[in-house]
């Protein structure tokens, strides 16, 4: 019997008003593409909140990590409102502190400071994914 490969859903706030929102988005993409490919998926927060059943059902049946730019935690709120408690919650401004002050909202011509901020937050997300997968019971593959 093969063990089912569980995936963790990462929900980024992608807040447009602040650089931390851009960092949340790019760090999530980095985890999907580079750090934990095949073990993670992402969910569009606005689509999720607008009522897409596919996205909501995934978040109901899989562990999720909310990645928010600021303490208002819109991604966490939206996920828990529609699909239940998240398995992990990260806040970029708490991870980076004042080092986010020099970051840009646009990803064009990203500086070394921007890139380092994304790398740091992505590592935190990957660590959270590993913790969650280690704690998840291994379930037999259906069918």
């Amino acid at each position: 019997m093969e063990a089912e490969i569980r995936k963790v859903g990462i929900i980024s706030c992608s807040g447009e008003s602040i650089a931390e929102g851009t960092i949340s988005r790019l760090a999530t993409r980095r985890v999907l593409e580079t750090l934990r490919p095949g073990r993670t998926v992402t969910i569009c927060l606005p689509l999720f909140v607008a009522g897409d059943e596919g996205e909501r059902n995934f978040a109901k049946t899989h562990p999720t990590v909310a990645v928010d730019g600021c303490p208002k935690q819109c991604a966490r709120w939206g996920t828990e409102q529609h699909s239940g408690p998240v398995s992990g919650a990260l806040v970029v401004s708490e991870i980076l502190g004042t080092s986010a002050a020099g970051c840009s909202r646009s990803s064009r011509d990203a500086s070394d400071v921007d890139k380092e901020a994304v790398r740091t937050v992505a590592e935190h997300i990957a660590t959270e994914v590993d913790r969650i997968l280690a704690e998840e019971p291994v379930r037999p593959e259906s069918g």
Partner: protein
Amino acid sequence: MNGDGETNAKPVLVIPCSGIGKVHGLISREATYLVTDQLAPGKTDTLCLGLLVKGDDEAVAAIKSQPCITIDGCPKACAEKNVRLAGGFDARAVQVTDAFKKHRGAEPGTATDLTEDGWAIAGDVAREVADEALQIRGEKEDL
């Protein structure tokens, strides 16, 4: 202008979907920054869509008192829907997919990085949105 004659003095809010799964979402986001930071600074501003869908009092009050232009990456139109659900005032909706029609065969990049093609499409979307914003404010200019 709204009924009390004050709306034109406030920045036009440009709100992208920032969809995280496809390049179209990144184009919507970068087009927004081109408008608010380069083409029409001071005359336009942006707002976190996540904050709006959460129902944040300040965000909801802003979209009810300021004209909004939404930029959506796909026909699900999450930005437009969420602004209207929150009671958005004078929302105008722009679709990134429409801009692709002028760029047949373009390779715009990914949800993480835009190519020069992608930046060209973002520029087209940005000029359209900035033009709309100036018309709304009664300040039509050649961009």
